């Protein structure tokens, strides 16, 4: 296992950090978060034209750059740091991986190049109203009709679901249960019978939608009834990318709080000079470094097809869930009254930490997955 980034990876990170510092200052984050879409095409186009970010982990044969999970995770980490408002996680992490893992060769050739350039914004709709993250919870049905299928049901918590051009949907054959009978389908964002509603989200920098399908025309993606395995693989990548994104956010908050504490005077001295602050700051560093190590290790484990990856991915997500939230709680506390205001940026990361804590499953869920692997 690699325990350090290559020179190119470090350079990639440096470029991204500078790019996002310039393009995604919190004034821009706040502007976009107030819109219903949550992102805009113009910024998205630049992100892809200038850096080709959506293409990073898509294989070259499908118009991508052919890098691995480590590079994708670096992008996510840097986006998490800067709270970039873009449909990146939906399109480049969730949808692209679902298509890669499930699609036939010709489907990949048809769908991935558009995603890679950013011209197509895609997402993956799997969770339903009950908020369960496992495939077995799927109740949306796909009924064969003519040469294709018709979808009926509802999906919820769909990342950028109200703005995506292409929606990959997890659905099941009527009468099936558990992991049987599950298939992926692709649906156009403007398909007839599809109602899309933006949900009111606690973290306005990451938009979620509820999608209702009433006999919506859909194309099968990959093999009928065989989506469980590709879905699981997609969720592994997603958990690892999210853990990296969260580690990035936590690290940013930790640094910002430290900077503030060095500057803020009370009792005639910087609050960073109080021993209780120093201990807190040291503990925060320990926690965030642990979360980063777990997130980096998990990304490397994916790239090296480590057989422990299921446990490791969940370990990373659980660790990131706890750490990001705890760091955010500390960050507000360190800022005092100003940390509780709308205008102070700490709250933006706090809310991202809060939503990421449960997105794709909370720490308890992931610890359980890990233990089922390791304690079986």
């Amino acid at each position, binding site marked *: 296992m690699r325990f350090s980034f290559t020179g190119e990876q470090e350079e990639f990170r440096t470029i991204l950090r500078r790019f996002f510092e310039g393009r995604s200052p919190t004034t821009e984050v706040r502007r976009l978060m107030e819109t219903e879409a949550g992102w805009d095409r113009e910024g998205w186009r630049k992100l892809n034209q200038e850096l080709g970010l959506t293409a990073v982990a898509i294989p070259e044969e499908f118009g991508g750059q052919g890098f691995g999970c480590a590079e994708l995770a670096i992008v996510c980490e840097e986006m998490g740091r800067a709270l970039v408002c873009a449909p990146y996680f939906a399109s480049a992490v969730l949808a692209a991986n679902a298509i890669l893992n499930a699609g036939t060769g010709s489907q990949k050739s048809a769908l991935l190049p558009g995603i890679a350039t950013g011209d197509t914004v895609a997402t993956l709709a799997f969770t339903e109203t009950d*908020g369960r993250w496992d495939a077995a919870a799927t109740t949306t049905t796909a009924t064969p009709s003519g040469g294709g299928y018709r979808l009926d049901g509802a999906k919820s918590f769909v990342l950028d679901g109200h703005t995506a051009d292409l929606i990959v949907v997890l659905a099941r054959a009527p009468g099936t249960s558990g992991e049987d009978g599950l298939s992926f389908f692709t649906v156009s964002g403007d398909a007839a019978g599809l109602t899309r509603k933006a949900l*009111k989200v*606690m973290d306005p920098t990451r938009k979620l939608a509820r999608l209702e399908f009433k006999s919506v025309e859909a194309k099968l993606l990959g093999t009928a009834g065989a989506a469980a395995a590709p879905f699981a693989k997609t969720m592994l990548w997603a958990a690892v990318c999210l853990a990296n994104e969260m580690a990035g956010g936590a690290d940013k908050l930790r640094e910002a709080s430290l900077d503030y504490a060095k500057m803020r005077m009370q009792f*005639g*001295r910087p*609050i960073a000079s109080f021993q*209780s602050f120093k201990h807190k700051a040291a503990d925060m560093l320990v926690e965030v470094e642990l979360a980063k190590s777990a997130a980096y290790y998990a990304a490397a484990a994916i790239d090296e097809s480590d057989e422990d990856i299921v446990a490791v991915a969940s370990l990373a997500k659980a660790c990131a869930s706890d750490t990001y939230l705890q760091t955010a709680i500390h960050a507000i506390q360190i800022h005092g009254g100003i940390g509780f205001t709308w205008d102070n940026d700490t709250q933006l990361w706090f809310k991202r930490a*809060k939503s990421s804590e449960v997105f794709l499953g909370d720490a308890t869920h992931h610890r359980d997955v890990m233990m089922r692997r390791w304690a079986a």
Partner: protein
Amino acid sequence: MSEVTEASVRAEARAWLKEHWNPELGLVEWRNKLADSGWGVPHWPKQWYGRDLPVGFGAGIEEEFKAIGAIGVAKAGIRTLAAATILAHGTDMHKEKFLRRILTGEDTWCQLFSEPGSGSDLAGAVTRAEFEGNKWVINGQKVWTTSAHHANWALLLARTNWDVPKHKGLSYFILDMHQPAVEVRPLKQMNGHASFNQVFFTDAVIPPEFLVTEVGNGWAVATTTLMHERRGADGLRSWAASSTSKGRAYDEERIEFATTNEPYKWYPQRAGRVDLVLERARATGKLGDLVLRQEIAKLLTMSKAAEWTARRARAAQEQGRPQGPEGSLGKLISSHIARAAGRVHTSITGADAMLTGEDSPMGGVIAEILVSIPATSIAGGTDEIQRNIIAERVLRTPKEPSVDTDKPFRDVPRNIAKK
């Protein structure tokens, strides 16, 4: 005279309420009756609207109010701190002028303590009060002032002397908020509410009789206010909800809830709403989740033990014993409870915890808990300050060497440029 017992006092209160409570009275009219009879604040002195009864009888008397549906005196917000401070340090004129209107709810108060440059270090205030001719003239800025937009009166801590150590140069005033020289600007909080404000003074005026105690004694008076504020954070306060009963007094109380009490409507949420936990776990079918059950049990243990700690502290106080260390712990414990409750509510709520407003559980109440609890460990003195107080004043650990208490305030390094 027969012996006064809780039972005899409750019987007396019940009889009085039965004779006088009438929901068709105006709210202020009714509360004036409470003030005259002493039943609104029975632990206050007889001379000042009370009955000189032990604090411990309060809960029983409140139950009598509840039983008959009678409305109590106005209690929400800073007005209770104003009353406690005025009772302890005010002149008869202050008591005459302010206490009754505090009880009737006619006056709303705010606390002008924190400043941009001094929060934890309250004694570092730089808002200045200068005596000019026959009045005090105030210049400077306060911040995080809850309810300043509703308040007609304020408790103000300001600097009157820059040449003495910081604690010695402060004075405490009562300020009339209704003057053009006082400007209130709302501040939006991370939970979307705007219950606190920035307050600017440009030659605001205070008549000499509204100085509380003496010049230079502001810190001692402020300590009384803060002690009451922190004691009030021990979790024993029940956040009244407006009733749905019919009658003029109830109608007017509902208006009060929607106006002057409005800034406090999210306060129950910031404490974590432990009361909702079992109900929510049941409603979501998660009561059987073994991991969650343990977390809920831990939260309930902490919350119950905290309640009993607060009761123990109050009981000791009622028996005239000096308050033991238990009394200082309440505020700190309330932060632990709020955070633990946030974790439990998140676990119960799952993916729905990503939502807010009408799309989220209980019409946004759960979401409001999650984005409001960070205030608990900041407002009224941060957790770190509470720990310092517990360690240094209760446990008598050696004091931190101080860099700013022994020199003239003028020479102390601080955030805002010296004037």
